[in-house]
């Protein structure tokens, strides 16, 4: 019993072919959109790649880019096929290609779905990459004279200003890092030497933050130093403290930024996937309807189209047995064409005398 059987008249078949031609062209456009989204995501990730410890999440935009390109190609071919399918003579040209094309498109559509789901599942990996990356960047903030790290100060300052964040999880992360290079510390000053000595690792730590942590929304000029001692500043009450620096951590800020982008992209890709599925179903119906028309022999008659010829279970069994027999093809079995030695062959067959009449 066929799955999803529908009967098509000749006009209905032609209309289906036209509609599918149009839908395939729209799919080419959505494929280009998919490609564009992948490219956009790649650029966004690479913008802040210096604060990420590893670039593993780049496989998501790469997947989207390849799927987008494949979508363009597959749907362009599909539009050509569907245009020809309205006419039975032209359909014969494509008959052999149709089935592999549909199987290909089915797997491709599965890839699109995987791409959409990946967008949603990437959060934890991103969180880890950002935490480690930011920690390293903050550690190398002072190393503006070391090649390979000299741009980290500028990157981190830009990040904190643009995303309105400070530190990794909190502004207090800066208290545990020496962010002023030793070349700008006056080692003849006893206060400086004392501070360096009092630290176990010999680092110059203080309770102050870089200027990029300053909030532009504060109503008073920025207080960057002596932050753990509010009494050291005039009228530095609770409210002033709240507004003085950016309160959010940069890990959270970047995570929110990328999660927002990925969710929008994921939603768009899911919609594209649904559309592709619709197109695939239409093409399958058209293929089966045209094949049945050819089997019936009369181009003008009605024919049936379906998604699967037999029920789901039977089709699964059939395919499974095909796969099993593929594995068995190199084994010796009772193929009648293989030479089997029999007792009869041992006897010689006497040659018959043939009388040849010689005519002169």
């Amino acid at each position, binding site marked *: 019993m066929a799955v999803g059987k529908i009967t098509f008249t000749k006009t209905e078949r032609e209309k289906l072919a036209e509609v599918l031609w149009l839908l395939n062209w729209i799919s080419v456009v959505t494929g280009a959109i998919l490609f564009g989204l992948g490219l956009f995501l790649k650029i966004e990730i690479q913008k802040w790649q210096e604060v990420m410890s590893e670039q593993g999440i780049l496989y998501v935009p790469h997947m989207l880019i390849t799927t987008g390109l494949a979508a363009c190609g597959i749907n362009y071919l599909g539009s050509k096929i569907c245009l020809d399918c309205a006419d039975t003579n032209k359909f014969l040209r494509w008959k052999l290609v149709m089935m592999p094309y549909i199987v290909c498109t089915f797997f491709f559509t599965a890839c699109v779905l995987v791409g959409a789901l990946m967008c949603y599942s990437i959060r934890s990996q991103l969180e880890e990459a950002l935490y480690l990356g930011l920690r390293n960047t903050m550690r190398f903030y002072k190393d503006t004279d070391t090649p390979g790290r000299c741009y980290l100060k500028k990157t981190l300052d830009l990040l904190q200003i643009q995303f309105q964040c400070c530190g990794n999880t909190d502004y207090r992360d800066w208290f545990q890092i020496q962010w002023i290079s030793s*070349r*700008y510390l006056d080692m003849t000053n006893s206060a400086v030497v004392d501070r360096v000595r009092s630290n176990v690792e010999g680092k110059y730590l203080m309770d102050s933050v870089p200027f990029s942590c300053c909030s532009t929304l504060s109503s*008073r000029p920025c207080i*960057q130093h002596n932050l753990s001692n509010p009494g050291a500043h005039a*009228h530095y009450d609770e409210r002033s403290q709240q507004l003085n620096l950016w309160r959010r951590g940069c890990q959270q800020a970047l995570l929110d930024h990328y999660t927002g982008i990925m969710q929008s992209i994921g939603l768009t890709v899911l919609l594209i996937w649904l559309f592709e599925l619709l197109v695939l179903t239409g093409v399958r119906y058209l293929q089966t309807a045209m094949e049945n028309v050819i089997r019936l022999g009369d181009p003008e008659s009605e024919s049936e189209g379906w998604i699967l010829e037999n029920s789901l279970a039977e089709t699964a069994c059939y395919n499974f047995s095909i796969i099993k027999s593929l594995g068995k093809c190199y084994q010796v079995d009772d193929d009648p064409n293989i030479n089997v030695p029999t007792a009869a062959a041992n006897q010689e067959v006497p040659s018959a005398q043939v009388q040849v009449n010689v005519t002169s």
Partner: protein
Amino acid sequence: MAVLKVKFTKTRRDKLAQILWILNWISVVTGVILFSLGLFLKVELKKREELMAERDIQYVPNMLIAVGLIACIINFLGGKICYDCVDSTKFLRWKLIMLPYIVCTFFFTLCVLVGALMCYTMHWELEEALNLGLMQAMRFYKDTDMPGRCFLKHTVDTLQIQFQCCGNSGFKDWFQIQWISNRYLDMSKKEVIDRLRSNVEGKYLMDGVPFSCCNINSPRPCIQQQITNNSAHFNYEHQTEDQNLWMKGCRQALLEYYTHIMQSIGLTLSVLTGVRYLQTSLENVLRQGDPDSESDGWLLENSLMETARTNLSIIKSLGKSNQINTANNGDPNIDVPSTSKAHYGPDN
């Protein structure tokens, strides 16, 4: 004698009409670009109106928006006319409108030129507005508790960060302004009171700048306080240090930004003017032509002098049309009382 006379066969006229149609669509696109640039300029000027003193510069983007819209409409109409011009029967439909249309577009081209000139004169007014506006904004930087001025600190900080500039003409402008409010000064400290007393106007001035002046390209942490005191910081010389703070003044930075926008607009206007001139001359050519035969096309029907004379006499006669013409060499349709009796009716 005609100006720039060219002989036209029917096919050449068709080709001409096609070229005109394309030119018209280019003009429509240019009109759209002009409209959007005018809108963009209006939005940008409005965004920073807190930093500009009271000067009427909104007339420039308003005019550009109007010119852009009119360009679209005129050229859209022109496109339709040129499309019909190829066919002789359809051309007759437009024949009467062609001349007024061309006159209209000529005056419109003048408007476009005026617009381009206005863009360049706006530069001076903008500089003046910015100079006064920035000075005021910096003066009220500390007044975050006064309604109407409480956002100026945020505006100036965001401006200095975004445009990478400091102060009006340079960072030293901040040394002459008290940018820390008295409510955040510790009046119990001796140094604070000394500093206040040493100033004639009782202002708390210091050689420090707000944090938004800090240069992100600097290899060392930002030095905001005691900028002119070399001994206050290790390994620091303020005379040669140019990476610590933003060196550009905000007036210059903003001016460069707006000038850049105006230059793009000026370019668009030049393109529009050039295309328009070509169009009007070609339309004139097309108008004179006879649909099916060979015809002459020209820029002006008679020489420049004769055309000017004809137009002047038309304008003079327009002025005279309301006067009563008593002379005999006037309009024969005017009622002149005759001596002969009018003969009416069958009995005469």
